[in-house]
């Protein structure tokens, strides 16, 4: 393959991967953030305990998280087709990626919010704060560093999953690695593709950690 051709393919692959990862993570948070908040407040020591609701959410999330991504990918193909119109390609891959991301994100949000000091929540109640104020201005704001670390982990995990989606023609770098590297034994392309994935992961990790440190006021200035 010509260099120019390969360069074009890799650029497009990188773009496709970023598109899938970013959109799925965003959608994952749209579903996972409220779920994580619900898990936190309905737990026994939460601000609005509700054992039944907690248990239901808990089970749903555990079940979804137990399904291996590759199986999930195939399992929800009819659903994907119903939503996007087809079951292969970059946009279609966003559906299973989001389904995999949401429960993972919900769990990470839950664990971040649960780190918030109970005393601070009590203080907010004593000031006459309502549930909504406590959720946004105490729980979410106080745990923002930890939440951002969670975003970094989520992006990394989804990046890994997106590469797996190449198996069923998901598009992106994973797809290239499998089609050229695995099926056609073009080891060179496979190595380059993997290298690009590694670099992407490094950048995500580095930027996430830098940002979360920057917004943390607990370590002074």
């Amino acid at each position, binding site marked *: 393959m010509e260099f120019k051709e390969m360069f074009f393919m890799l650029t497009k692959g990188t773009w496709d991967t970023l598109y899938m990862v970013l959109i799925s993570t965003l959608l994952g948070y749209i579903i996972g953030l409220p779920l994580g908040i619900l898990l936190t407040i309905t737990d026994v020591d939460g601000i609005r305990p509700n054992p039944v609701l907690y248990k239901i959410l808990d089970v749903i999330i555990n079940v979804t998280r137990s399904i291996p991504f590759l199986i999930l990918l195939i399992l929800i193909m009819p659903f994907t087709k119903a939503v996007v119109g087809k079951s292969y390609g970059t946009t279609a891959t966003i559906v299973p990626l989001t389904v995999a991301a949401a429960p993972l994100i919900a769990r990470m949000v839950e664990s971040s919010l649960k780190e918030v*000091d109970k*005393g*601070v929540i*009590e*203080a*907010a*109640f*004593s*000031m*006459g*704060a*309502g549930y909504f*104020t406590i959720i946004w*201005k*105490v729980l979410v*704001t*106080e745990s*923002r*560093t930890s939440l951002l670390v969670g975003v970094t982990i989520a992006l990394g995990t989804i990046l890994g999953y997106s590469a797996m989606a190449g198996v069923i023609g998901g598009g992106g770098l994973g797809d290239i690695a499998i089609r050229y590297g695995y099926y056609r034994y073009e080891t060179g392309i496979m190595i380059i593709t993997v290298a690009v994935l590694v670099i992407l992961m490094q950048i995500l990790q580095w930027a996430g950690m830098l940002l979360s440190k920057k*917004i*943390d*006021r*607990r*370590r*002074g*200035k």
Partner: protein
Amino acid sequence: MPVIELKNVTKIFDEKKSNIHALSDITLSVEEGEIFGVIGLSGAGKSTLVRCMNLLEKPTSGEVLVDGKNLIALSNKDLRLMRREIGMIFQHFNLLMQRNVRDNVCFPMEIAGMKRREAREKAMEYLEIVGLREKADAYPVQLSGGQKQRVAIARTLASNPRIILCDEATSALDPQTTGTILSLLKRINKDYGITVVVITHEMRVVEEICDRVAVLDQGTLAEIGPVKEVFHNPRSNAAKNLLLERRINQMGANAADGI
């Protein structure tokens, strides 16, 4: 006129193995404008008692009247409004760690729906009262314990309360800092006529600032009266034990000085 009245307040915590009687049939009243102390050993139910006064803990039975209104009968919304008149400070300060000092003081005003600019201006006035104006832009992590408690006091003042509840507010502080916080509380009580309720296990706190004191013993009210009376002529065993314990501590301190 009493500003807080507890009538037959009982609190039972349902634990899996046994029920814990944290408070049994407590009846007492706190008068407007006084500094009222509640003293007792740890586990006596002091923290539960003070949390019943703003309903952070809901009593199992009994009534909690603030300004003649029964808090238990209030709707959630009215209770939230009522809580703004009852400030509270804590042993571990409970400041928002991700907000600077000024924005911490703004928090109760935000809850009350005040405009941000106005709140920020007012915050500086409250910080002036506690002598921390120059720390407005600092974050809690950069402050000492005494400074954090002063921010917490400024934050409480920001909701313009009629009552301030102090839950072991000086227990995490050294003796000297305890002194400054106590005199600040006394000044606030005097200058603004705010009723102060102080929960503590330290005799010193009660002696220094309280007008009246209630002695709690294993969830029951052992004794209540003016501080001088209770400390000079204790009638209950719980009060006698507290005094005895202090005398032993003082003797120990004197002996150490003698060496």
